[in-house]
C-alpha cells in the first residue's frame, strides 16, 4: 500500500475529485480527515475516514478545521489536497462587488489559508515527503470574457503554488488543472442542469472539442494525485499539471 500510515487532509472531500482522492488514499492505507458540508457520499468509508464539517468560505471554520487536524494528527500531516470549489459565473460587464468577493472566498482564499495554517504540521509529518496539491482548472490557461472570476482565481492559484514551492523548501507543491471531469460542478451553483442535460453537455463536448473523445472520471485525477504524492515524483514540485484529454491545445 503506497500511503500506509499517511495522515492526509482532503478539503472538499464529499464529492467529485475530492471524494475520489479520499477513496484513493484510504485504499492505499492512509487516514484521511475529510472536510465538507454534506457527508451523504462518505457514510460507508470506514473508520480511517474522519469527517469534519467545514464551510470553506468562512474564515472561522477554516481555522477551526485546521485546529481539529492538528489536534487529531498530533501536529503532523503528510498530504494536503484542497479541491473545494464550484463555478462562479460572471462576465466583464455583469460582475458585481458581491460576486467578486464570493469568488475570491470560494475559489482562492481557502487554498491560501489551509496552506498557511498547516505548513508547520506538514514539516512534522512522518513520511518526510510532504505534498500540497491545490486543484485548479484548465480555465486558468484560457481567456473567457463571460467567465472572468473563475479564470482569475484559478490563474492566481497556479501562481500561488509556485510561490509556495519557493517559500516552503522541503514541501512539494502542485496545482492540477483538470479539463472536463464528470462531477457535480456542472449541475451546482449557477448551473441548473438536470442530469440528462449534463450528460448531453458531456456528449457534445466529447464529440466536438475534446481530442480524447470523452470526459474523464474523477478517479483519473485521483490517479494523478497518487503519482504526485508518491516517491515516483520525488524531484517534482512547483508546476501546474494539466490533465484535460487535449482540450486546451486542440487545433
Amino acid at each position, binding site marked *: 500500500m503506497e500511503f500506509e500510515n499517511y495522515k492526509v487532509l482532503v478539503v472538499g472531500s464529499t464529492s467529485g475529485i475530492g471524494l475520489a482522492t479520499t477513496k484513493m488514499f484510504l485504499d492505499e492505507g492512509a487516514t484521511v480527515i475529510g472536510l465538507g458540508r454534506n457527508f451523504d457520499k462518505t457514510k460507508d468509508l470506514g473508520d480511517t475516514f474522519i469527517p469534519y464539517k467545514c464551510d470553506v468560505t468562512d474564515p472561522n471554520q477554516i481555522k477551526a478545521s485546521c485546529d481539529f487536524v492538528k489536534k487529531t494528527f498530533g501536529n503532523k500531516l503528510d498530504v494536503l489536497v484542497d479541491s473545494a470549489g464550484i463555478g462562479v459565473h460572471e462576465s466583464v460587464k455583469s460582475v458585481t462587488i458581491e460576486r467578486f468577493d464570493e469568488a475570491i472566498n470560494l475559489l482562492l482564499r481557502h487554498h491560501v489559508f489551509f496552506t498557511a495554517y498547516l505548513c508547520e504540521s506538514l514539516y512534522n509529518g512522518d513520511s518526510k515527503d510532504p505534498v500540497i496539491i491545490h486543484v485548479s482548472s484548465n480555465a*486558468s*490557461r484560457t481567456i473567457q470574457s463571460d467567465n472572468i472570476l473563475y479564470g482569475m482565481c484559478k*490563474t492566481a492559484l*497556479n*501562481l500561488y503554488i*509556485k*510561490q509556495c*514551492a*519557493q517559500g*516552503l*523548501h*522541503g514541501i512539494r507543491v502542485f496545482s492540477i*488543472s483538470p*479539463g472536463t471531469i464528470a462531477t457535480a460542478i456542472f449541475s451546482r451553483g449557477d448551473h441548473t442542469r438536470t442530469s440528462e442535460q449534463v450528460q448531453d453537455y458531456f456528449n457534445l463536448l466529447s464529440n466536438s472539442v475534446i*481530442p*480524447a*473523445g470523452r470526459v*474523464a472520471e474523477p478517479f*483519473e485525477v485521483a*490517479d*494523478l494525485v*497518487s*503519482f504526485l504524492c508518491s*516517491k*515516483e*515524483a*520525488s*524531484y*517534482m*514540485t*512547483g*508546476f*501546474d*499539471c*494539466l*490533465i*484535460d*484529454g*487535449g482540450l*486546451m*491545445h*486542440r*487545433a
Partner: protein
Amino acid sequence: MILADKVALVTGASTGIGRATIHKFMQEGAIVYGVGASSDEIMSITGDFTFIECDPTSEESVKQVCCEVREKIGKLDILVTVAEKMFHGSVLEVNASIIEEANRYICLAPMLFTKYCYGMLKESTNGSIAYNIPAAALMMDKNFLNSIYNVAIINYTRQCCSKLSPVRVNSILFGYMEDHLLTAEEISERSVPEKLAKIPAGRLGDSIEVASVSAFLASDKARYITGSTYTADGGAFTAFSRSMGNNGV
C-alpha cells in the same frame, strides 16, 4: 508493473536520462529498443532490450530504425526522445554550424522519430510520446540555443497532441541532474551550498527521477494526459522568480 507488455523506443539511449529510462521501463515490464550513439554501458544491458545504433539527425537513419522495429516486433506503444547533446555559446559567439547542429539534435531528431513512429503508435491501445527537454529552456541563459529550440519542442508537443490524437504527446522538463549531460565542472559549480539553497529540493536530481515521470506518462493511469509539460527539476526552474511562462507551462 505499469508498462507490462508494452514496446518502447528510447532515443539518446546512452545519455543519463536515456539509460535510466531504459532501466525503469524494463523494470515496469516493457520491451525496450534503445537508439542513438553507442556506449559500453548500453551494450552491457541484458534482458528484453535491443540497442540500434542511429544518427538521430539523419532522416534515412531514423526511418531505418523504425523499419527495423516494425520488422522485429511489429508494434510500438511508447516513444521517448532524449537529445544527446547540449549546446554552448552565447548569442554573439555562435556560428551557422553550431546553430544548425543544435537545431538538428534538438528539433529535427524528435520530429523525425515522431513522424516515422506514428504509424505503429496509432495502432496501440494507449500510444504515448514524451519529449525530454531541459527545464533550462524556460530561463534566460548564456547558452541560448538549448533554450530557444527546446521552447519550440514545447510548442511542437501541443501541435502534435491534437494532430496525432489518440496518440498522447507530452513533454518532460528536467532540471540539473547529477548524471545527465553536465560536465564534472558544471556539476561541482552547481553543487556549492549557495546554489543548492536556491533549489527547493536542496539538491541536484538523479536521472531515475525523470525516468519515473516518463513511466507514469506512458502508463494506462495517464490516459487523459496529453499536450502537457510535466517538470522534474526540484523546483529550480518552476519556482524561479523570473522563469518564463510562469503560468501554464
